[in-house]
């Protein structure tokens, strides 16, 4: 039985020294969208380049729709893979206009007809009037969308996106991301997005692979990796996290925030993971904390707190208009169940 989509098994890429990718296995179902999330240098770009055929791995295999592209002696040339690749800088050809760029990968006859340019530009949310512009007459977001249109013109089964939005400003980034996702969904392409931006990964993909130091740390849905991270490191990488020492007894745990409910039962010494948005301020029944600072961010605010009699510094994310003032004394509560990890030394993760 051949499986549709991408199957990466046991992929190891190494050149002098420790491997860049260490036995990475990952499956992406056909039409699915996976985000590979990790800090710089974690090997995520190398994973993408191995998929595109620019890297010969030391071992492991890559299959797309049941066809072996990389594995053993096989290394299918990049141009024979039918895999679209959109880089961070777009890599538009400076000597060709938008039309020339979009049609670049098509057979000569289709290039001459040029009937696809308009629909492709519309697909990525650009005006067909841009067709004769040169790359240096486009904004960064427009360049990025043209690069996507160029990759989609060949109707690839798989599209790889290498941090395609990271050079765009916030407003442009959201719009470009939206347009990209829409275009990819319409084409039913299997998509792999590489990014170090947690919010981007969470909002873009239906599955997330977290990669640290060349190894997959966790694969799951956005909600799974955010709410139920496999390790404290994964949890911290996906968003602001408090890790507090605690004593678990079945379904509950004792820590500086009081007795909290556990999402999954545990016993003994544990690390309790609490996200700042799980903390509710103004509950008189909980422990009372001293507000150290408030970072107002519009829709919400990050409140930093001290607990009396402890050196604990805590964080709470609250709606912006309900933010307390520095110096206030507020009661804390964590009404929702929390996650815990077996207590073990935690090393800071260097990027």
């Amino acid at each position, binding site marked *: 039985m051949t499986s549709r989509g991408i199957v990466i098994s046991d992929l190891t890429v190494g050149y002098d020294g420790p491997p860049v990718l260490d036995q990475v296995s990952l499956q992406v179902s056909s039409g699915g969208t996976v985000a590979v999330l990790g800090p710089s240098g974690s090997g995520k770009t190398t994973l993408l380049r191995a998929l595109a055929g620019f890297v010969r791995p030391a071992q492991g295999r890559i299959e797309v729709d049941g066809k072996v592209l990389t594995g053993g002696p096989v290394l299918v040339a990049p*141009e024979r893979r039918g895999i679209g690749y959109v880089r961070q800088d777009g890599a538009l050809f400076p000597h060709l206009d938008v039309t020339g760029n979009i049609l670049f990968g098509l057979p000569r006859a289709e290039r001459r007809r040029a009937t696809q340019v308009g629909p492709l530009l519309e697909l990525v949310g650009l005006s067909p009037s841009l067709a004769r512009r040169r790359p240096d007459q486009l904004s*960064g977001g427009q360049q990025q969308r043209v690069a996507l249109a160029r990759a989609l013109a060949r109707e690839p089964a798989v599209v790889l996106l290498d941090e395609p939005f990271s050079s765009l400003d916030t407003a442009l980034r959201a719009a470009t991301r939206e347009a990209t996702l829409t275009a990819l969904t319409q084409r039913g392409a299997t998509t792999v997005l590489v990014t170090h931006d947690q919010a981007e990964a969470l909002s873009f993909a239906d599955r997330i692979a977290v990669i640290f130091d060349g190894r997959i740390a966790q694969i799951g849905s956005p909600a799974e990796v955010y709410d139920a991270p496999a390790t404290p490191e994964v949890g911290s990488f996906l968003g602001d996290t408090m890790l507090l*020492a605690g004593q678990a007894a079945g379904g509950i745990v004792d820590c500086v925030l009081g007795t909290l409910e556990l999402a999954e039962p545990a016993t003994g010494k544990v690390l309790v993971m609490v996200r700042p948005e799980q903390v509710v301020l103004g509950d008189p029944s909980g422990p009372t904390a001293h507000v150290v600072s408030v970072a107002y961010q519009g829709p919400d605010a990050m409140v930093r707190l001290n607990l009396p009699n402890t050196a604990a510094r805590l964080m709470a994310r609250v709606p912006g208009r309900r933010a307390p003032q520095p110096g206030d004394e507020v009661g804390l509560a964590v009404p929702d169940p929390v996650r815990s990890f077996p207590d073990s030394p935690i090393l800071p993760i260097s990027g």
Partner: protein
Amino acid sequence: MPASSDLRVDAVIRYDEPTAAVPVVRSTRTPWYVMLAAILLAALVVAPVLVVFGQATSAGSAEASRLLFRPRTAELLRNTLLLVALTVPVTVLLGCGAAWLVERTTLPGPGIWRTLLLTPLAIPAFVSSYAWTSMLPSVQGLGGAVFVTALAYYPFVFLPVAALLRALDQGHLDAARSLGLTGLGAMLRVVVPLQRPAVAGGALLVALHLLAEFGVLQMMQYPTFTTAILQQFAVGFSNAAGSLLAAVLVVLCLGFLVVEVPLRGHARIARLGPGSGQRPVAHRLGAWTVPALAALAALVGLAVMVPAAIVVRWLARAISSGAVEAGPLLAATGSSIGLSVLAGLAATLAALPGAWLLHRYPSRLAAVLERVTYVASALPGVVIGLALVTLAVQWARPVYQTAALAVTAYTVLFLPRAMVAWRSGLAAAPTELIEASRSLGVSGLGTFARVVLPLVLPSALTGFVLVFLATVTELTATLLLAPTGTETLATAFWSASDELDYVASAPYAAAMIALSAPLTLLLRRQILDQR
């Protein structure tokens, strides 16, 4: 216990993205046909050098050491090194200074200056030395040689430096200033390092031309290895003494090539992507405008105007005395153009595999193959010429005394010009674009034709023009290898001026200048269109 939990909170809560570039893993498999072509061409270039060494060693070691370790050799070595040591800094100063004034300041009329400053390329060094000596016999010896060669060769530095200065990104300068550097500091720590490959490459080219220069030094009566070798060959054809001197010259050339490597640095200057480069802001010259204009005018005047005026004066005398014969002049012009076009095409094509290899699949072998191409160009044309004659007579009799052998000699001699042009051009076709093309389904060769070639064609054209110019004015190899009965402009000029017949030389000198002049305009457009 709470204290320890706090430490952990701080330890894992934030990740900072490191900004250092991550090394990119590449599949570095070199296509066999590129490697094969590069190796074959390197072999073609090396063959004459091997012939030279072969003939040099045929003398036997006792005879060899007697010939090598005599005062005459020491004098030639001193003369040659002195010429290089004095001329190269002058050309770097002139080339960089002129490029900076034209490209980075508010100097009036930069377009005109770009053209004027390149015009020395249209006047062969031996023609301007003929002009100077015919008017001022005191222009002689080392001083005269430095004067004429520096004025003739500074465009080799000016051309690449001006092109790079035009491509300079104001963003880099602004960043340097915002990091606390003064204008001068930014110049020293940003502009200069970026210019290093261009300056080093240009200076190397000047040094190699000085090693091979014959016409100027013969007229200035300043003996170097090259003039001495020619005298040796003139006395006794292909003798061991000449080959020994040639072998020393090869060693000198190798020395220069090795020295240039660390000077060049490792700058990678391709720029891409959103917010692509911003034109640099020009420095205000203010009160310095007039002195700057005067300096450039003096440079162009001495390098071009005066020699050209003298040639015109001799030409006028030739016309008025009825000494100009149309038939031989047209024939010489035709054969010069024909040979030069063929040589330009051959050298441009031949330089490509090596340059491509070095750009796309850099390795020690690729670097060696590239360096090798410089070796032959440092040898006097007559050495290459004689070596090719020897090879042809022994192994390829039918090509002896045909245009094919002459074109081969030009290719071997002028390959570095095409190579330098290709290399700067290939920097405009970075790997990112090549990979983008591959992932769009285009094969390696297709990518070359549709992405690399369009981007580097302007540079390839520059290379062609440089080889064409060099061939039109090539003298010594042409004297030996021109097909039987064929006179080129250079050889006809030389036989007349060798007899101090300034009037009869003038039409050929004027024709060489006229032929080269439009090409200088073409070169100018190259710098203008850069970026």
